[in-house]
């Protein structure tokens, strides 16, 4: 049931817009890579082995005791979903683009009813447990992910080594298998040309900054994803704690930059925010890139109290609603780029009305 809902409704848990530092941190994500002992990893597995893994996981998550521990969960094989539906799940950040791209009856997804927990089956690893929370809630997300991990581990035999920890397909994930990341909106840092300096500093500390849609995508609308690079050596608590404290520093930088803008360039800032608001509430054709730029400005205006009649949750929903797959889902058919630009403008206008 939850997967059907997830495809229809743009809203998902991380868009809530509430929680610590919700004005700068959009969401917090924790991902755990896990594998079953002895089964070949997905990139070399044959179909039968892959299906076996998928069925084992499906049985584990549909077990009533699992529901008691974790809550309601739905399971689907990805080949039962259309490519468009799989892209919608990517746009909602519930699965990775890589998971959506590959065909095959062995690829699966388990999704909790509130869409906070998603478990990808046979992505790069047999299991990728992901928890997505709104705002800066890394500790909470880790606790939930670890609980789901325990519940699965009591039913499945994980590949684990005393020396190397959780064994993963790629040596960059071995150890804790933990990748924690936060999505941050840093318009003022970007505007005051501090972004590069900040990111260089972060990379020296072992953190990676990337564009919104992961590896190889540019930052759109001043949205960045900050995540840990190292998975072997530090404990999970250390990784989470370090990332959280780095985030608090990023937030501080952004807040300082915003205050500087308010002090030195309030009129220009207001002009920028209200122009963007004007474009978004009046345009009839708008590309995704242009929309992201103006949405970033409107979000900044809202956070700084310059604009009032906009809802932060609505802005978060727009991040997904205006993406190509979701637009087509709303239109109920495949539509070309021009029609998408038209539909996108319509949705944004009505969201801001």
């Amino acid at each position, binding site marked *: 049931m939850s997967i059907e809902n997830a495809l229809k409704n743009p809203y998902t848990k991380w868009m809530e817009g509430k929680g610590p530092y919700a004005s700068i941190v959009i969401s917090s994500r924790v991902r755990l890579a896990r594998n079953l002992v002895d089964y*070949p990893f997905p990139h070399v597995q044959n179909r039968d082995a892959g299906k076996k893994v998928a069925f084992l996981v499906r049985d584990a998550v549909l077990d009533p005791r699992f529901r008691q521990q974790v809550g309601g969960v739905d399971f689907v094989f990805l080949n039962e979903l259309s490519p468009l539906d799989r892209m919608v799940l990517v746009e909602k950040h519930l699965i990775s683009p890589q998971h959506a791209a590959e065909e095959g009856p062995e690829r699966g997804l388990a999704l909790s009813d509130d869409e906070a927990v998603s478990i990808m089956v046979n992505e790069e690893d047999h299991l990728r447990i992901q928890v997505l929370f709104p705002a800066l809630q890394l500790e909470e997300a880790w606790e939930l992910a670890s609980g789901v991990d325990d519940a699965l581990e*009591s039913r499945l035999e994980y590949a684990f080594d*005393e020396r*190397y920890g959780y*064994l993963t397909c790629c*040596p960059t994930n071995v150890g*804790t298998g933990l990748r924690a990341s936060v999505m941050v909106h840093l318009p003022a840092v970007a505007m005051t040309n501090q972004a590069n300096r900040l990111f260089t500093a972060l990379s020296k500390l072992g953190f990676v900054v990337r564009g919104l849609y992961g590896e190889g995508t540019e930052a759109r609308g001043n949205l960045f994803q900050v995540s840990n690079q*190292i998975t*072997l*050596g530090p404990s999970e608590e250390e990784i989470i704690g370090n990332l959280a404290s780095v985030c608090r520093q990023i937030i501080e930088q952004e807040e300082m930059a915003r205050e500087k803008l308010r002090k030195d360039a309030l009129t220009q800032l207001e002009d920028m925010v209200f122009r963007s608001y004007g474009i978004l509430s009046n345009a009839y054709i708008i590309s995704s890139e242009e929309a992201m730029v103006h949405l970033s400005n409107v979000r900044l205006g809202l956070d700084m109290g310059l604009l009032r009649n906009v809802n932060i949750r609505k802005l978060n929903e727009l991040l997904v609603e205006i993406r190509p797959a979701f637009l087509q889902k709303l239109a109920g058919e495949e539509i070309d780029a021009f029609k998408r630009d038209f539909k996108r403008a319509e949705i944004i206008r009505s969201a801001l009305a």
Partner: protein
Amino acid sequence: MMFCQECQKRPATVHVTRIVNNVKTELHLCQECAKHHEGLAFSFNFEPNFSIHKFLAGLLGGSPLEMAPLQSPGCPNCGLSLARFGEIGRFGCSRCYQAFGDGLEPLLRRLQGASRHAGKVPRRVGGKLGVRREIEKLREELQQAIRQEAYERAAELRDRIRSLEQGLE
């Protein structure tokens, strides 16, 4: 603004310079025409050319695995050879870690800066390993307590360590 040489309609955004047998030719195309242009199509295929795995394979090319016995038969469970691992940068199954043995350590050190897991342990394997970890942690605390001359606390810790050690035997 320069227009596309082929369609003459859209702005040229793709510029290609080719030098074949010392003859230089220039092409100015729009995205659309470039996609269909012979011999150019593949250059739009940026993504598959770069992936973490290829990058890793590159790192492995420098052969941090040379320490592993060259005649290593590879993984007995999935059949992945060391050479193949060097090409794809990914393991074939969880047994590979054991099969490639100590040769992995330098690679992991280079990638991760460490080669020893200090995090969570699955409950299933947990038992003794968890206790050993606990003892290690208590020993560190004990040293600290002694340094701080907190002898009462040190005595408590010592007793706790003893009872845990007895439990292990």
